[in-house]
């Protein structure tokens, strides 16, 4: 009984963290068709922003939920103006340029923070369920990603800003004819995507020891989740992260964490072979 509760929490946690990791990339790829391979480094910078702010005496939740997304969003804004905006519509080139950016940020972080592990303690203590110890922070992550997904849905589906953004992504020429500047909308979208990446990195920072190269651990998972999700932004994100999260946890409990990761990757390969357009390319068509 206790064990099944623990496993249930772990599965929810795995799904939530996958969704959290992938949200920023999903916004940038799903809406702008730009694959941001520097996504992992945006997360890494979110983590560093949090840790630095906490060391300066800021409340940890303020640092995670407000300061880190803002700083990373601003960095994303600069990146968009300098590099990405010249490459819209050239998928492979954006991948290469953002890969270059990711190397650049790794080098930058190494020069500023050094090649050592920094970390902060988790702000929420764990508690015992029967014989098992559960990390209370897991619930916080599940909560954050649920709120995030719901607010993304509400923002895109019900508000005027969301409507304009979706319209621009579908037909930027039409949006321009109606008087909205696609250039600015792309800029704002990229800002939001980067801020989401920063938020994800910040929220996950207390769980991992941060090194300048720790972005690499996220990018592949995020990339796979987003591509496997397919064209619908939020439904795709939820369906693919649920699938991969469950597969990952089953194999983690069954065999070992390494096999959990390997099983996730293999299931992604099989899924893409069967559904080359992603889950929502086949099911839930036309949903958000």
């Amino acid at each position, binding site marked *: 009984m206790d064990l099944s509760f623990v496993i249930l929490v772990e599965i929810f946690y795995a799904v939530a963290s996958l969704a959290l990791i992938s949200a920023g990339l999903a916004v940038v790829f799903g809406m702008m068709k730009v694959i941001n391979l520097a996504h992992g480094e945006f997360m890494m910078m979110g983590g560093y922003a949090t840790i630095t702010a906490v060391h300066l005496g800021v409340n940890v939740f303020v640092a995670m939920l407000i300061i880190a997304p803002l700083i990373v969003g601003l960095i994303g804004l600069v990146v968009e103006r300098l590099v990405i905006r010249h490459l819209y519509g050239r998928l492979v080139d954006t991948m290469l340029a953002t890969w270059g950016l990711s190397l650049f940020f790794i080098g930058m972080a190494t020069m500023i923070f050094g090649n050592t592990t920094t970390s902060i303690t988790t702000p929420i203590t764990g508690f015992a369920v029967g014989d098992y110890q559960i990390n209370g922070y897991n619930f916080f992550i599940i909560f954050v990603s649920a709120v995030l997904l719901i607010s993304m849905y509400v923002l895109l589906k019900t508000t005027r800003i969301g409507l304009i953004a979706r319209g621009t992504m579908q037909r930027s020429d039409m949006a321009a004819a109606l008087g909205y500047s696609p250039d600015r909308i792309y800029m704002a979208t990229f800002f939001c995507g980067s801020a989401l990446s920063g938020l994800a990195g910040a929220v996950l920072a207390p769980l991992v020891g941060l090194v300048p190269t720790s972005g*690499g651990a996220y990018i592949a998972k995020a*990339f796979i989740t987003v591509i496997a999700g397919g064209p619908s932004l939020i439904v795709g994100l939820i369906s693919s992260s649920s699938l991969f999260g469950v597969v990952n946890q089953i194999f983690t409990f069954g065999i070992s964490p390494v096999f959990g990761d390997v099983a996730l990757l293999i299931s992604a390969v099989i899924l893409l072979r069967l559904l080359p357009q992603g889950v929502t390319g086949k099911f839930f068509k036309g949903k958000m």
Partner: protein
Amino acid sequence: MSRSWGRQDAATIVAAIVLIWLMPLLISTYTLTVLVIYGMLALSLGLIWGFGGILCFGQAAFFGLGAYTYAIAAINVGESTLPMILAVFVPALFAALLGAMMFYGRLTDVYLGVITLVVTLILFKFVNSSAGPQYVIGEARLGGFNGIPGFHTLNIPGQPDEYIWGDALYYVCAVALLAVYFLVTWLLRSSFGRIAIGIRENETRVSLMGYDVRARKTILFAIGAAIAGLAGALFANWGEIVTPGLFSLGQSAEIIIWCIVGGLGTRLGPIIGAAGLAYLKFLLGQQSLIDNTLIMGIILVLFVLFLPKGIVPAVASLWKASFGRRSGRKSAGRRHMRRVDSANG
């Protein structure tokens, strides 16, 4: 046309021999060997990406697979000829299976990138965690994060005690690169290569002409993997150790950067890009003021933004603009020329 090719080939051989002979005067052969190996690795991706249009994010997988195959086989066999052959065939077979799975599923661009990247990651994670004593192939322990040291290095075929190392290894690698270069040249001039370029330009049109695009892409992919495997085996001989780092994302990224910087759609470009950037990295590694990765990142971003075609095509078109006017061809003719050039590289 074939006569001018003959003259070109002769000139290439002469230039290559002079370079092979001259370069050790400038750079130590130990460094040169690895530059040559990287050149071969870059050429393997240059072939499938630049001429076949297959962007593989996991060329490092085949490189690492070649190196590991060599190391494991060398420990079990105790000499180097069979392991070298295996190190070419195992990655090629692996790539043929992977390629068949991808191309017969009609996966393209981004999805192809994801799958090759994922496969590289799977290999990396698996090899990285294989430290336990249960991971044994024959007599070779996989060794996990520590890699496999102490295997039998390259020897003269048939004489297991006559090791090839130091200067001799450099000449072997350089000649191997030259051989691979001519293999690629020959391949691209054959009808197979021409159709591969056709597939890159317009896949639908080629398949409507009745060619089996999927099989051709799979074969090209396997050939690229074979070359990468050979490079991996030579790298294992040079480093005398193989580690999971060979499979890492960073390694894959570097191969792509070499190709972009050197020039896609050329044979010389990737080799020059690889050797040049690897040497630059070697030089940068000797100072500690600026981080190495940072400079590599800046180089990649700048090239994508300002010189997306790479150095070699840019220099070639500059050369043509300043010296090529005499031929007096009109623009239509020039366009035809460019296509032939991209075919000839």
